[in-house]
């Protein structure tokens, strides 16, 4: 019997160049409406000239294990899909927007068609064994789709020995996106 999947991502910010290919690929793949995005790119620079540090990140819904959006949804439209992702059933969404208020990552938007929308981790692709659109296009392979239940432990080996963090962990959301910090040395 095939083991249940627990999808997430490991994102290596050391190599990300903030090119935004992931943003456009997602838009094409998922027909994201104009004026909105399901994923986005952040370039953060800290310090004062000439001592500067930079981290580039491709961000999206974190598919939390304790997702406030799922806790909060009054109709069960936002739900845990059983594969480690959080999905939305548009036909059960009333557009109350509680999930937008609940999300500490500001990852959701209201689709002009009326329902709440966000990164679906390309469920229609990953269930067929493909990578998500953003992972497929990423020219630096910064984005990696992982299955935390994978017995080969690719996720762990990717993160082994590196400084890895999750965003807003103190919020208690237990997000499924793991970030390899840009402060890691090359070859770490």
């Amino acid at each position, binding site marked *: 019997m095939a083991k249940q999947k627990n999808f997430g991502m490991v994102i290596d910010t050391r190599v990300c160049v903030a090119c935004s290919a992931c943003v456009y690929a997602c838009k094409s793949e998922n027909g994201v409406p104009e004026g909105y995005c399901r994923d986005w790119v952040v370039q953060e620079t800290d310090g004062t000239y000439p001592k500067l540090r930079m981290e580039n990140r491709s961000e999206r819904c974190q598919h939390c294990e304790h997702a406030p959006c799922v806790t909060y949804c*009054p109709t069960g439209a936002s739900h845990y899909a059983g594969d480690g992702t959080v999905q939305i059933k548009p036909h059960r969404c*009333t557009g109350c927007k509680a999930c937008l*208020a609940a999300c*500490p990552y500001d990852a959701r938007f209201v689709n002009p068609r009326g329902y709440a929308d966000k990164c679906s981790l390309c469920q229609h692709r990953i269930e067929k064994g493909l990578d998500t659109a953003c992972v497929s296009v990423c020219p630096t392979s910064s984005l990696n789709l992982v299955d935390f239940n994978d017995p080969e432990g690719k996720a762990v080996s990717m993160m082994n020995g590196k400084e890895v963090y999750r965003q807003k962990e103190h919020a208690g959301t237990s997000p499924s996106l793991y970030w390899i910090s840009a402060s890691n040395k090359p070859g770490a």
Partner: protein
Amino acid sequence: MTEMTTEIISTKLNPNVLPHLHIWEWHIPLYLFLGGIAGGLLVITSIMIILKRKFGIGPKDEGDGCPCLAVRIGSLLSPVLLGIGMLFLFLDLAHPLYVWAFYTTIQPTSPMSAGSWILIAFFPLAVLQAMLVNKKFLRERNIGIVNKLIDWTEDHLTLVALINSQIGVGIGIYTGILLSFFYARPLWSSSILGMLFLVSGISSAAALMMLFSPDDEKPLYSKIDANALWIELVVVGLFVLGGITGPANNSGAMMHLIGGDYQMAGMSYMVWFWGVFMALGLLIPLFLEFLEAAGVHIKFPLVAPVLVLIGGLVLRFLIVFAGQTYHTFM
């Protein structure tokens, strides 16, 4: 100490969260206001019914079991105002044709699910109560089913009124709880918000009852209102202090509300909060009602309740807007 600068460039495109959360506009504060009043009215009227029926306390009856005019109008207004409020909620929905989805499930962890059901549960008993207190008028219509319902309610009045008072509290409090569960929005994330909305709802309801009650009943409602106002003052104080003494997110959000220069309809939050809500909406009415109670008659006695209502409305707008314009939980 030199300041470390952080430069963030983002490609994010989302008018719902940029430049700040922007999901709820006037519909929600208006609903909160009307819902608070409806809940407050239900609480006040049901308690007054019990006090009169069981303990004989309260203003004179109209006779034949019909309580005073204020209670009759109040009981009627409660479901009406809540209905109007629910209309606003419906208008706020982005996917209105799917509103039925609220009622095909109960999501125990969702205050909004609880709220949607409370809103429904509210109506049957509140309407029955409204019918009962206006039975003299309704009996004249001589509609069979109506008479039957009034009789049933009469028989179970104590229970109905008690339940209604709890539902009233529920209506008043759940909206605050609903907002306070959003820890991603630091301003709302306060355990006392539910209590604040409840007390504010009661003070607004009492003020409304003051407005439409006959002169001889006014002092009673003035007293109820005054009490509600000073409790509200205490609760607001705790709300503000709780925010300011909290961690950075919470203190920042509270300062954004009470000390911020962010504008709402041309004035800063600070002016709205201290000038309109606190001064005009709480302190001055409290003072006026205190004078009333002390026997000093004011030339324009209805100033106080109107100010209280304005204050209640402004409070809702401030909290809903300021909660969205402050940044997400960091």
